[in-house]
């Protein structure tokens, strides 16, 4: 009971959209494809659905090769980022259409449609045409259609991206609950790390047509395989700086250094790339041996409860996420602190050398 990619790749007009990919998705799991736009999330989904045929490799569904199988013959449901419904049919007929095509009886269809409509809170609108609904209701109609199909594989391609903030939060908490009991494989594409963390399950970080890392969502978050995976799974992106490990010390900036603790202590001496997440940067010194950086403040963005500070440190652009509204002088020098326990060390080739010690403890 699983969907398996074996060396699947996709090339369109000489451009590689998907590099050879191996992936195993088990039934009853929520799988998040996380990556920036144009990273290949939608291409992967189209291959999973069977809308595109891979150039190389095989796709196995429950152990059977389904690589060239028609879309109609697969048990797949898909919801797009755009609100895609059949505009000429009523909401009821929209939701009912996949079941009717499967040859289900009218009473069966009616029961399933009403159940799905209740879940998606569409019951009062069953007689309307989809274009007479609000954006959120249109997308719920599309979700309801995917739900009644009872497909083994449900693909949700950024289903909440075009919705307003409130609706997105509401649906985001509903979707895992609604689909949990169905027992199918869920694939959910998103550009937002926050969404991946909220949905849980497994996460695959996707970058330039490659699946960089696949595993349980918290594991991928805490133990990024390499700098790319860490960059994808951090919003705002992870900050980096050059460090040199020499003896028991980590040297950085203008000849400053801190004692090496945790997993990094076992590393050989040399130059590493240190990465840390924006929310770990502090305006005050909280721990005794925190790393202190002298940075220049470029921009501050205040979201209400938080402040994003855009900093420059030795030619590297950093973003810090500070609690509360911070009143800071633009263009001025700003000292910031970082607990070394939050620092990931990456080797020169980008692979993870040592995870942050807080991640190991957790």
């Amino acid at each position, binding site marked *: 009971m699983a969907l398996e990619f074996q060396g699947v790749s996709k090339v369109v007009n000489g451009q590689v959209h998907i590099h050879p990919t191996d992936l195993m998705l088990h039934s009853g799991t929520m799988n998040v494809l996380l990556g920036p736009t144009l990273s290949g999330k939608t291409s992967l989904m189209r291959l999973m*659905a069977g*809308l595109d045929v891979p150039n190389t490799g095989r796709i196995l569904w429950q152990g059977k090769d389904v690589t060239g199988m*028609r*879309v*109609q013959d697969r048990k*797949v*449901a*898909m919801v*797009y980022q*755009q609100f*895609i419904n*059949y*505009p*000429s*049919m009523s909401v009821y007929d929209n939701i009912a*259409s*996949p079941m009717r*095509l*499967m040859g289900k009886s009218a009473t069966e269809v009616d029961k399933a449609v009403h159940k799905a409509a209740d879940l998606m809170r569409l019951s009062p609108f069953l007689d309307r045409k989809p274009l007479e609904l609000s954006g959120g209701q249109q997308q719920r109609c*599309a979700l309801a*259609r995917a739900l009644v*199909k009872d497909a083994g594989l449900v693909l949700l391609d950024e289903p909440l991206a075009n919705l307003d903030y409130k609706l997105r939060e509401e649906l985001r908490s509903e979707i895992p609950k609604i689909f949990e009991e169905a027992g199918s494989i869920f694939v959910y594409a998103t550009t937002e790390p926050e969404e991946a963390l909220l949905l849980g399950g497994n996460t695959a970080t996707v970058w330039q047509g490659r699946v960089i890392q696949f595993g349980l969502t918290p594991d991928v978050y805490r133990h990024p395989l390499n700098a790319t995976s860490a960059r994808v799974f951090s919003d705002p992106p992870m900050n980096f700086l050059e460090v040199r490990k020499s003896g028991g010390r980590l040297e950085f900036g203008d000849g400053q250094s801190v004692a090496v603790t945790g997993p990094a202590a076992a590393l050989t001496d040399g130059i590493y790339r240190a990465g840390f997440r924006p929310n770990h940067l502090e305006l005050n010194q909280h721990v005794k041996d925190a790393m202190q950086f002298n940075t220049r403040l470029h921009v501050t963005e205040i979201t209400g409860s938080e402040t994003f500070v855009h900093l420059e440190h030795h030619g590297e652009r950093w973003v810090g996420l500070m609690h509360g509204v911070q009143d800071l002088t633009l263009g001025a020098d700003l000292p910031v602190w970082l607990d070394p326990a939050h620092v990931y060390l990456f080797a020169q080739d980008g692979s993870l050398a040592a995870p942050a010690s807080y991640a190991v403890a957790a």
Partner: protein
Amino acid sequence: MASIPAQRTRPRFNIVMVLYILFMLLPIYWLINMSLKTNAEIISTFSLWPQNLTFANYATILTDSSWYLGYVNSMIYVSINMVISLVVALPAAYAFSRYSFMGDKHLFFWLLTNRMSPPAVFALPFFQLYSSVGLFDTHIAVALAHTLFNVPLAVWILEGFMRGVPKEIDETAYIDGYSFPRFFVRIFTPLISSGIGVAAFFIFMFSWVELLLSRTLTSVNAKPIAAVMTRTVSASGMDWGVLAAAGVLTILPGALVIYFVRNHIAKGFALGRV
């Protein structure tokens, strides 16, 4: 104060509109006026409305088979032409809007160039070809000849409408389990019904008013009304009243078609490319 200019321009604008419509309708009014007069009145006096109102001209057309069969013939080949053109153009337009294949853009442009050549160019080859294969003086001959001009136009219009339908709807339908023919008929066609209406309108208009090909390719059995009208200079001179009545009856179908598709046309001009 601000409302005064509006009050001043309104009546003037209305006068312009009324004059414009009067001038536009004058020939049509005169045609109707003539059709309701006797020949003697038409030739002898100048009268703004019929002095001796008569429906004899219309009675002539509706009872004389050489007249009313002209309408029947025209309607038959126009209908055949509409069906053939749409049946051919719908899949072609779908292919152009959904797939990219070698030379698709050139082929699409070449379709339009078909519209650029005057029908007269094709009168001779069609006449010779149809005569030699025994299609001369049949309804299907005229219908086929007109598709040469109508299919490219229909493809052009329909492609614009189809391009406006997101490809994701096609894919969602396939995922839901629709086969292609079922998707095309049940889901896709209703979405582009305005486009089909607009395309049908233009096909009708071309085929209904086209004179040269339809006259060249027919003699007796499939003679269109336009040809009948232009050949009615008999030994007894011009039969003005009957000709005018025939003109009125020729305008009517076009006016009816426009009335029924008027909402689609407005929508069509905005959505499609036409």
